[in-house]
């Protein structure tokens, strides 16, 4: 079947079998290998991407189901010649990755969380990321990185409002 999917703003077309997973379309047809495939049955979260702004496991969606829709993968978080996205920078600064295999999935899940809830509690961050497994870091750096970005957003908002500082409600 012929399908067309917009990925990171660019159109990608290809012929796929109905059984082709979205993760395989992204990696093998679109050639965007930043999306990693870990378990291929929806447990590890490594292949998490966004479809029309919502996180999904790309290994649990058929490529044909993404026909005509818009996807965001890790390559879309920052252009190759642009500075890193704030989440990517925070992951770098907080040692939120070691081998990096799970990182693209974490970034897409964290991006969706912060868009819906710009000022999450630590517990909310942990719950939102509970579907993504990391076998290197022990998660502390990842959670801290996401909380850092939330704090930066808060500080930015306070500056814009002329507040000397803010404290978040528990």
């Amino acid at each position, binding site marked *: 079947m012929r399908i067309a999917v917009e990925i990171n703003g660019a159109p990608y077309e290809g012929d796929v079998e*109905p059984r082709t997973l979205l993760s395989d379309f992204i990696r093998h047809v679109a050639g965007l290998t930043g999306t990693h495939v870990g378990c291929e*049955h929806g447990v590890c979260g490594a292949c998490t991407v966004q479809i029309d702004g919502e996180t999904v496991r790309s290994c649990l*969606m058929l490529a044909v189901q993404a026909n005509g829709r818009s996807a965001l993968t890790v390559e879309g978080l920052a252009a190759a010649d642009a500075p890193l996205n704030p989440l990517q920078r925070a992951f770098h600064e907080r040692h939120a990755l070691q081998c990096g295999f799970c990182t693209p999935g974490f970034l897409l899940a964290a991006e*969706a*969380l912060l868009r819906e809830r710009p000022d999450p509690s630590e517990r909310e961050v942990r719950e939102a990321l509970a*579907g993504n497994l990391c076998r290197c870091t022990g998660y502390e750096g990842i959670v801290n990185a996401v909380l850092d970005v939330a704090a930066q957003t808060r500080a930015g908002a306070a500056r814009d409002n002329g507040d000397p500082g803010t404290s978040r409600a528990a």
Partner: protein
Amino acid sequence: MKAAPFDYVAPHSIAAALAVLGEDAKALAGGQSLVPLLNFRLARPTRIVDLNGIVTELAYLRRSEGALRIGALTRQATLERSRVVARGWPLLVQAVRHVAHPAIRNRGTVGGSVAHADPAAELPVALTALDACFHVRSAQRGTRTIAAADFFQAPLMTALAPDELLVEIEVPPLPAGARTGFAEHARTHGDFAVAGAAVVRAGTEHAAIALLGAGPTPLRVPDAERALRRGASAEEAAGIAGAELDDDWRRALVTELVRRAVEEASP
């Protein structure tokens, strides 16, 4: 692994879907349980009937004549965020928050969870406590309505015939002043539940307790419900609910989870 080949049909109406359902065909809703089974080749249907194009007829949440009507294709995330549901049927919100993770709930559907009938699934247990009924339809025999107690028959087995489609879940209104509680134990947040309990309670008039992980299907415990209506404490009712379980560890777990859910549902 990769799925075995199958024919793919994406109908745009319920009628068109019913025309292609049958033996060797499998309805694809959110795919969060079916696609892993396909990838492992534990399921090898010759035809996949993708329901995701039937949005207006199958994806809705509405209140009518006091009851909640949930289109089978309604995403779990939609249920979770619905104010109508939070106000009138809070047990569904309490339960759906335990279903896997946000990325799964964005795709996973209420009807899919019911039709898949995993014994560790939260929504079938909550719907059993809520006395929900399921409207199913086939091309040959039209629509029939099945009560939760008759719908879930065994792990992954329901009253649905191969040519039938679950189209709507109907949840009756809660008794006035009812409160609800849901508690479960999973090894990590979002993992399959080992055990759980869903409770609806309205004074001495109404009590419903459904158990997860106490049998092959969601299990109501009438003796414990009767005790609650007669004024038993959460601890006493929980003891009765767990009493039938043979295994010591599972009995202790279910008893404690019932106690917590009853307490949450108590004023």
